[in-house]
């Protein structure tokens, strides 16, 4: 047991650091406020909160693995929430089924997932088939989806859903909050898909070296389209939980989650340039962030201060990552915004062994 643990840690030092950080935050919080932090209720509440941005972080990780990014996840979540809420309201008003019927809930969930899958698929088409860069495609997509939500609702919130639906966000499976159970199942499926399937392998290869992946005969457009569609779907699952927990759907809800999910992905060891990242690391990142948030709330930091700390943490993690990489002797090329492109002239390709970098630029 210990040996396997050590082997795992040696293979992935980032996860070792994360684990240490996680344990440290846990211990500090338990020590500082044992009554408030170490209670079943606090853990249940953290479990529900984790699921919303946890699912979004999974989406972010998936796109980052390919070297892309999805900035539209929150917009997709809000739009699918809004459309699901409208459907639910209409259904109940029409009286076809009683308000507390399971069918109403099922239709709402189906609409949310369908819309999110569609939005993600549109992103994917733009990126994979048309060739728009992921940043622009998902930024534009975010504006479009948010805009549709605003048009449909006239910028007002939709509130009040049946109790059956509220169960998804507020109910319990024995001691586990329902959202946490949903998140756990989604994470397990996600991990399997990434690690054990052909799809997951292709995703990683595209992120590690798109040119090599292409010349290996992998169907890159198809995989990329699916990646963004799945990213949308994960946002859709998150939207069901958000709707149910807040008992409302509104455009602009949870806009800070975009930054948070990027922070978690980077903290969890996902390389924004693509190709590398583990689900274990991501989940630890999610927990670290949640522990910190709980700590901030208990210490009554203002949301502004919390943002400063989160932003600083994001920058710090990236800087430390760079320094560690440099110490390990790997020099990062390019901007890091995207993997170094190998183009027709061979520029950006690794230098031949023994090539020395030019002396400090004159």
């Amino acid at each position: 047991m210990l040996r396997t643990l050590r082997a795992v840690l040696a293979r992935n030092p980032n996860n070792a650091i994360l684990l240490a950080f996680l344990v440290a935050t846990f211990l500090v919080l338990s020590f500082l406020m044992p009554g408030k932090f170490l209670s079943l209720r606090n853990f249940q509440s953290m479990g529900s909160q984790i699921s919303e941005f946890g699912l979004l972080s999974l989406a972010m990780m998936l796109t980052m693995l390919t070297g892309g990014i999805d900035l539209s996840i929150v917009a997709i979540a809000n739009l699918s929430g809004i459309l699901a809420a409208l459907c639910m309201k209409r259904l109940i008003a029409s009286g076809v089924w009683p308000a507390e019927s399971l069918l109403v809930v099922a239709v709402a969930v189906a609409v949310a997932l369908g819309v999110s899958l569609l939005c993600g698929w549109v992103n994917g088409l733009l990126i994979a088939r048309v060739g728009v860069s992921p940043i622009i495609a998902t930024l534009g997509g975010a504006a479009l989806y948010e805009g549709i939500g605003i048009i449909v609702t006239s910028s007002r919130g939709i509130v009040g859903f049946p109790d059956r639906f509220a169960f998804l966000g507020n109910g319990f499976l024995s001691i586990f909050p329902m959202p946490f159970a949903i998140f756990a199942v989604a994470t397990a499926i996600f991990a399997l898909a990434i690690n054990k399937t052909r799809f997951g392998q292709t995703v990683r290869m595209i992120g590690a070296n798109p040119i090599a992946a292409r010349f290996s005969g992998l169907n890159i457009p198809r995989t990329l389209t699916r990646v963004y569609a799945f990213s949308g779907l994960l946002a859709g699952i998150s939207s069901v939980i958000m709707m149910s927990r807040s008992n409302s759907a509104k455009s602009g809800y949870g806009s800070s989650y975009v930054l948070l999910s990027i922070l978690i992905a980077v903290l969890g060891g996902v390389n924004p340039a693509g190709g590398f990242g583990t689900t274990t690391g991501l989940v630890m990142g999610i927990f670290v962030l949640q522990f910190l948030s709980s700590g901030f709330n208990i210490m009554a930091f203002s949301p502004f201060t919390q943002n400063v700390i989160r932003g600083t943490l994001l920058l710090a993690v990236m800087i430390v990552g760079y320094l560690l990489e440099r110490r390990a002797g790997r020099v990062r090329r390019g901007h890091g915004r995207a993997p170094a492109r190998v183009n027709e002239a061979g520029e950006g390709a690794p230098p031949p062994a023994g090539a020395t970098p030019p002396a400090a630029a004159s």
Partner: protein
Amino acid sequence: MVSSAATRARPSLVRRVVRRNEFYLFLFFVAFCALVQGVSSTFLSLENLFDVTRTSAGFAILAVGVLVVLLSGGIDVSFFAIAISAQYGAVKLLLALGISNLAMAFLVSCGIGLALGAVNGLLISAFRLPTLITTLGTQTVFHGLLLTVLGSRAINSSDLPHCFLSFSTANVFTVARPDGPPLGLSVFVPITVAVYLLTWLLIRFTKLGRGTLAIGGNIESARRMGFNVPLIQISIYSYVGLLAGVMGVINVALIRYVTPTTLVGSELDVIAAVVLGGARITGGRGTILGTVLGVAIFEVLQTSLVLLGLSSFWQRAFVGLIIIVGMSITAYQTKVRNARNLVFRLE
């Protein structure tokens, strides 16, 4: 203008014009203006022209900053956080000192902008961090620090130092008209023109400008060619910060009200306008003229939505649609061209 690839034998002037992206943008702009004019005859009046150029000056100034960053292959989403910090800081300082001096306001605002921009540049160049994620992080930090340190209280028009109010109504010249008060061209306009001219000169004629394009083309090649990449990157992001400082002061004068909770979050609009103007987010390509047209089209589209009978709720979706359609066209063209030239690239 900046990146004409006319190294081969120069084709005729007409050919060159027709081949340019800007030509089609211009056609679109003219056609759209004609359409709006058809619906509402007040659209193409001198009054409206003066008004639109005045209100879009700040936006246009930031757009040229975004162009420079995009040319270098990066992206900056922190400029509104910088602008609002610079603006609020300048107003607060002037109020605290009890003085009303526009030069001082510009000095403080630009100073804060420059410093925050330099932070971006330092982080990006020293640690080779991804530009989008870094500026997202600094955006949160700058804005959060502003709200934590200086507070989130809005300052009303009546409390603003007088210099902002007189700057707001200052005109370069006025045109008398028979019915009503004379029309004036705001001083914001020559400031904007000066910024565009300066940027054009910098890109076109300085080593810094050439370096910016070189980094955008291929950062590793630029490094090996001996360009001082860190210095260039710091200069680029500081320049964006400086422009954000200028925009901050103009914005106070324009809306005569300061609140540190606005602007941040609408960075996409500026990026959209620049990208619409033909700048590539992958770097190395984009022109000042394209940016001017991109900003013009964007502003006209936004202001005329209401004239065309669509409610303001449509604005957001419209922005998204513009970006997606505009980018899809250029991206698809590139893809086809790359396929024809056997260039294997994923962008």
